[in-house]
């Protein structure tokens, strides 16, 4: 009856931003990003990538409620870069890494079956 539509889980509704940024008022160089319609898949990936950045002092993610399809990432830096720059860098590093994995996998798959690739 009042069940939400199934696509609510992965379609960002009109008027909501995919990524919303909010500076932390009590902690210096800290911010919270609200990612709409994302889950542990990207949450943990981004959090761990941020941990590799030595200018990031804290990064963590949470899903405040299982029926609200949003994920929060908190980032605190040492001040030499903004949380936005850190998050942007982490995402770009992940993009490079994923491209690398994709390229290697496609090459390996072509080596094993040269004719039948569809990509």
């Amino acid at each position, binding site marked *: 009856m009042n069940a939400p539509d*199934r*696509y609510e*889980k*992965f*379609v960002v509704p009109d008027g909501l*931003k*995919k*990524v*919303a*940024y909010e*500076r932390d008022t009590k902690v210096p160089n800290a911010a919270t*990003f609200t*990612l709409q319609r*994302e*889950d*542990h*898949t*990207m949450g*943990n*990936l981004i*959090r*761990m*990538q941020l941990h*590799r*950045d*030595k200018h990031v002092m804290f990064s963590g993610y949470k899903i405040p409620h299982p029926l609200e399809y949003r994920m929060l990432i908190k980032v605190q830096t040492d001040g030499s*870069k*903004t949380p*936005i*720059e850190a*998050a*942007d*860098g*982490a*995402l*770009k*590093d*992940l*993009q*490079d*890494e*994923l*491209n*690398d*994995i*994709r390229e*290697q*996998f*496609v090459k*390996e*798959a072509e*080596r*094993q*079956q040269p004719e*039948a*690739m*569809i*990509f």
Partner: protein
Amino acid sequence: MASIRKTYRRTPKVELRSLTEESCEFVLSNTDVSMANALRRVFISWVPTIAIDLVEITTNTTVLNDEFIAHRLGLLPLVSSRVKEMKSPFESGEDDDWTDVEFHLNVKCTGDDTMDVTSNDIQCDPRHPDVRPVTDPEGKGILIVKLRKNQELNLTAIARKGIGKDHAKWSPVATTFFQFMPEIHINQALMETLTLEQKQEWIDSSPTKVFRLNPITRQVEVENAEAYMYDGECIAKAEELGKPGLVDIHQRQDMFIFKVESTGALKPDAIVVMGLDVLLNKTHDLIESLETEAQSHAAQAGGLDS
């Protein structure tokens, strides 16, 4: 954003071990558990396939009720090699987007014997004959319902593109998992304090064939580290023999053995590549939205925002 960016990226390595029509195995190394787990999650619930979503039943005199049959139809894997050309109902904007594939099923049992209605009885959409239920090597088809004499089933089913996040019927994998590469070190000095019988006894304590006795050197060697099931039997045996620390077993945190088993909807290599594409799209979208968000904040603060 800064033009010169210091990267903290990893340099992963991929080694494909086997690739068949229904499964593939590869080793992903020099990366983090979070990457392995993101890939696993994406294969299960974000790679799109085609599955029956709407069923209109005109006659159903079978023993199974309408919902039961609709559910069973939904779970049939459909060949989804053309899923990239399709749009799901909420992605589609234009009228000429391809969203639906229509199937018909009209069966009636006339003989005295029980009749099996299988996926082979489904009539495919003449506009898209390549979207059809997957076939098994024996060609028996997937059983939907059994009919008695004079029972009848007539229905129209509409298949759509979707993802496993929405409903598990759209998941392209039967199972997908990764395993941490085990790292096994035998304390050879301590091992030499055992008699040959004790060595053999210890080797046999492992339920899977992990260790072997070298007949020439009479030393215990690791035969197949990957066979180790983290059961701890050989560690318990070492303690029982009064030799704790005989073997040291760790899970490597940077090397993963992946196995992807397809339902038949997509080729296993296609699942992996499409999964990576999904993750790439996600990161791309996030970078874009993050940068617009950063710009709007910078504009708001008049450039004062650090």
